């Protein structure tokens, strides 16, 4: 058990270290000191000084990542490489923006209602590729890409025409009812109640997946569907429920971004948050704790690159994206160096044992 855990931890950590080293080399090539870049990244990504502490802003931006990461993770767990979170996220946001601007109910009723309806619509949207996959064997990646495109264009249409707030301005919807805005712990940080909801969902996911019979079914279907079916697990049902649950969570992420952060939808609303969920789930080794840590890490790097590098060092903020991309690359090629890492770990273990003995 210990050995398995050690390798699972060593993999993402070594990928991050290698990614950082590689990007520092890149930076050195441009003539800027890598150390000052690293320092700025840490200060502006995770620091506690300033009017609104960067760490709080990072926690705020990490919130939707945690949720889309969790959604992607559920797909991985049941053995389906679903990339449909992007579209589900957009669907959730659309419902939240529409209801948020048109409902006229007291907020204790309206806010939960908006959340539940956003999740329900996203779940239905996620049900389509899930059913296609299970009943007709349609490749989930292809159907997900289609579903994502449909959602993106529906959003573009809605904000350009029916939901457009005013004719002259940028294509965006009306601001939602102020009473429905989600509470932020530090004003202007985006860090608020939605973060708590995301963390609670991650904890719940951990217990459901690893400690209940339902979670057992999900894991067994994901690891070996023949085994699961042989033992009497209805694998079709398990895949469909898991994927739609993930879809609902991705929808909730979109909903809470509207209620807690943007307060409206506009063209280009998503900026690939759904896809980021895949990176988060992968780097987080498909584990809720991993998803939690990696979400904050990625959000911090992005934040630090945007605030610090661009403004104080005039290094393009895309460097943050390069760093993240390199880390993902090192995870993707990890099969190459995994055996070496395993050998290193087992050698250490043997040495320890010898010491003990």
């Amino acid at each position, binding site marked *: *058990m210990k050995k*398995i855990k050690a390798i699972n931890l060593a993999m993402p950590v070594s990928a991050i270290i290698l990614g950082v080293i590689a990007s520092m080399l890149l930076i050195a090539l441009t003539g800027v000191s890598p150390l000052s870049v690293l320092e700025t990244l840490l200060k502006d990504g995770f620091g506690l000084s300033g009017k609104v502490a960067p760490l709080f802003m990072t926690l705020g931006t990490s919130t939707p990542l945690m949720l889309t990461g969790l959604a992607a993770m559920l797909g991985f767990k049941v053995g389906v490489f679903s990339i449909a979170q992007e579209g589900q996220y957009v669907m959730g946001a659309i419902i939240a923006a529409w209801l948020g601007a048109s409902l006229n109910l007291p907020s204790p009723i309206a806010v939960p209602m908006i959340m539940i309806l956003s999740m329900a619509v996203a779940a239905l949207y996620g049900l389509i590729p899930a059913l296609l996959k299970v009943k007709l064997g349609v490749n989930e990646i292809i159907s997900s890409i289609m579903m994502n495109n449909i959602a993106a264009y529906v959003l573009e249409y809605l904000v350009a025409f029916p939901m457009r707030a005013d004719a002259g301005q940028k294509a965006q919807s009306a601001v939602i009812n102020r009473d429905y805005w989600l509470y932020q712990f530090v004003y202007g940080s985006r860090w608020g109640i939605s973060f708590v909801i995301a963390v609670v969902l991650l904890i719940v996911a951990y*217990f459901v997946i690893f*400690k*209940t*019979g339902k979670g*057992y*079914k999900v*894991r*067994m279907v994901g*690891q*070996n569907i*023949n*085994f*699961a*079916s*042989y*033992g*009497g*697990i*209805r694998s079709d049902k398990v895949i469909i429920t898991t994927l739609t649950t993930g879809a609902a969570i991705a929808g909730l992420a979109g909903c809470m971004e509207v209620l807690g952060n943007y307060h409206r939808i506009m063209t280009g609303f998503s900026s690939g948050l759904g896809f980021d969920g895949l990176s988060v789930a992968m780097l987080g080794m498909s584990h809720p704790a991993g998803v939690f840590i990696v979400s904050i890490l990625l959000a911090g790097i992005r934040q630090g690159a945007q605030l610090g590098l661009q403004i104080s060092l005039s290094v393009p903020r895309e460097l943050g994206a390069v760093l993240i991309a390199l880390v993902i690359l090192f995870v993707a090629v990890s099969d190459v160096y995994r*055996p070496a890492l*395993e*050998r290193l770990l087992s050698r250490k273990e043997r040495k320890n044992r010898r010491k003990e003995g």
Partner: protein
Amino acid sequence: MNAITFENISKYYPSTEVQASDNVSFSIRKGEIHAICGENGAGKSTLMNILFGLERMDSGRILINEEEVTLRNASDALAHGIGMVHQHFKLVPSFTVAESILLGTEEKPFISKKSEVEAVRELSEKYSLPIDPSALIDTLPVGMLQRVEILKMLIRNVEILILDEPTAVLTPNEVGPFLDTLRNLKERGKTIIFISHKLQEVLDASDRITVMRKGKFIGTKESKETNIYELADMMVGRKVLLSVDKKPSVPGETILSVENINVTSSSGLKILDNVSFSVRRGEIYGIAGVSGNGQEALIKAIAGEVQVRSGVIRISGKEVQNLSVEQKRKAGMAYVPEDRVHVGLNVEASLLDNSLLGYEDEKCFKKGMFLDEKKLRERAEKMISDYQIYGSSVDGLVSKLSGGNMQKVVLAREFEHVPDLLIVEQPVRGLDVGSIEFVHKAIIEERDKGTAVLLVSVELDEILSLSDRVGVMYSGSLAGELSGDEINETNIALLMVGKKGGVE
């Protein structure tokens, strides 16, 4: 004169930490049939792969015709006159026999079909291995495919032929002619090395036998001077009971009844044709037959979710032919499938997870809404000690276990159900002597507890030593049913080839 001499061959696999070959030294005489025996993982295949240039040894020397050679790859080996037939054939389905045999030997840029066919015909006549050179690989039975593989080596003028578990893929009827082929090749001066763990055929066919255990050379015996018990002891390192001790069965009421079931394939072909039989409490009903005669569909109809076109299947009186696997299990069925690596187990998961399948919704393993981990853990620990599962802890991955220990995990889990009906399919395929003994004993114990056991096997020995009654499948129907003194090799063999008149 020695054709091959192994001197202190060692090979270590760091990734799995296995010493596959440990200072092995012995020699093979020119023109003999030399069998290499050992349990799974004894290092037989590794040694042969080294000889054929597929693996590099860490240290040691190989001498061919008393001269040291370096074998870096298969072409090196072929150049020294060594050929190998692998357990899993490497043939192209859409090729003809002639094309398959000649592939890679073409010297001219253009080939003529006629001369190819002619060359193969000549070869097959020379070695008296009749085959149709223009037949498609796709259409040939396994025994013929093996013949193609052997001819493929012979046309390359090999003098030493290595066969890796050649009989594992053959049906019982094909084994006899195959052993004749080996003797025939020996008469023509070839040296034959073959790997097997079926002791009887090794004794029948070989001149000398080398036994390996855990990567070590144990000894070489003249086949005429040894016997099955001595070989088994050498292989396992302790005394083994080869025949299973079994009390006469005391059958009770009928548990499984199969009545006139018919199954057709999606293309409309009849796979099962009016099959009827029943299994009673406390007896082992063996389904014998050459594989591919409908056993698979029969098991799927009983234990899986294959729709029967007509007919009724009952477990303890309950109609189950249209029920889900989950409901069938609830009705008292347990099932040990043929493919333990892909179906019977989730090898990527821990032993604990593997022991839980089928119980994940049981109330007694729950604490509130959660699984009762402590209880499950204790239960898995108990399985490990009761079934003597070696090689992993409760949290260890099942993939680290040997074949025999994997099968014990499956048995432990399925027997825990306290089933009324137990279905076991090829329970000892690929297992070593020690594990076979264990599995067979466990199945008989289960019978004695009052379970109805349905055993499906293509191994005649297994059927003969375990079954209280036998049904023989032939081309989708039950060719006959035997019980008591009628159960013997001749009767079963006759029914297996469809000769109904064999039993009166």
